[in-house]
């Protein structure tokens, strides 16, 4: 479901170019408006959709998932700290959700990875990711899902 840009709304501010994790939002050389240069590489993270101050970016749903007129639209209101979602189904039914942008003070809880201790060889060879037990607060190792806790029919 790649993103696309409504040209009449885009003012070419560059927020989507800046935020796209795949680096596929660029500025068109002819009209100086944002454009998704590689729709195949878009993994629908919605970062650009949320970041666009003009609400000029939308996501085009594939026909099997979002047939004929289904829409997912997003409104980000920084001053309220909210992101509102509107799902419009093809029969006209709508669902609306509001979620927070963040619930923690902005920029305060960014992990300072440069200040962490350099992992030793044992840690590097481990299947765990760097400092995974600490960040997940699981000093005793990754939790294991016991077979008897699975519902019948889920496993063979």
């Amino acid at each position, binding site marked *: 479901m790649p993103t696309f840009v409504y040209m009449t709304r885009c003012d070419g501010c*560059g927020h989507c170019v800046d935020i796209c994790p795949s680096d596929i939002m660029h500025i068109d050389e002819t009209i100086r408006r944002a454009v998704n240069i590689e729709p195949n590489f878009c993994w629908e993270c919605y970062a650009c959709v949320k970041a666009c101050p003009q609400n000029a970016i939308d996501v085009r749903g594939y026909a099997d998932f979002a047939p004929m007129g289904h829409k997912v*639209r997003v409104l980000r209101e920084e*001053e*309220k700290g909210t992101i509102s979602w509107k799902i419009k189904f093809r029969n006209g039914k709508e669902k609306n959700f509001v979620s927070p942008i963040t619930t923690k003070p902005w920029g305060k809880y960014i992990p300072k990875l440069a200040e962490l201790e350099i992992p030793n060889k044992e840690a590097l060879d481990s299947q765990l990711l760097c400092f995974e037990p600490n960040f997940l607060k699981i000093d005793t190792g990754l939790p294991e899902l016991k077979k008897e806790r699975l519902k019948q029919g889920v496993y063979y």
Partner: protein
Amino acid sequence: MITINPFSELSEFIPSIAMQAFVVVMIILVVVGTLMDIIHKKNVKHFFDNAKKAKKSATNTVSAGKKASIVLKTVASDVLTTSELAGKRRISHLLGMYGTIIFWVTSAIMIFNYSTPESLTPSILPVLWHLGVIMTCLGGYWFWFFLRVDVVAEGKPWFRVVKADLFVLSLVVTATFGLVWSYLQAAGVSGWDTLFLVLFTLSNIVLFGGVYWSKFAHMFYKPGAAIQKHLAEADGSRDDLPAPADKPKQFGLGIKREEPRHY
């Protein structure tokens, strides 16, 4: 220099009627270029299709009076103060926009009313003309060197010229050549003033003749898009966007986004 009408001085060599004919030809070029642009890009058709779609998904009806008030508010806010843009881009756009309007309007007034050697031009007109030219240069060069998004957000050098630059570049070059020509003519530097007059004329032809290929016509489309956006907000269709969150600060702390400069 700033109180001298450059067109009155010029009329000693070029007849007033020729200057007036040049202005008329430039206006015709803009009209023809914009019409060709409309036919080629089908953007007016897009506007009307969008308006029809919005009408279908409207949740309430907007009276004619309310519509007129929305149009007036949009003109006062989005068009006259460029509220769509923010920060430096807005200031630069306002400088360029008002500079250009003053430059063009005073040019037309001076060419059609005070372009004979014996005409006495009210000194406010040449002062405004020079002020308009300087404002256009300030806004235009600021945009050119620092604010163009592919230069700022994509880290491209300022001297990289693409088709999208045709409008801004021809506009600032026209204003610059006009300013230099006015100075040289007032200072009586013959030869050089003719050169800059020719450059000023050529850059005007590129600016007004290049409407079909440049972003010149954005000054007609953008107000239309802004009016449509506000009408869609009023009739509840909102381009299918969610309504604003009704519980401000329910979640949050509110944040201020950073400027896009992380290339």
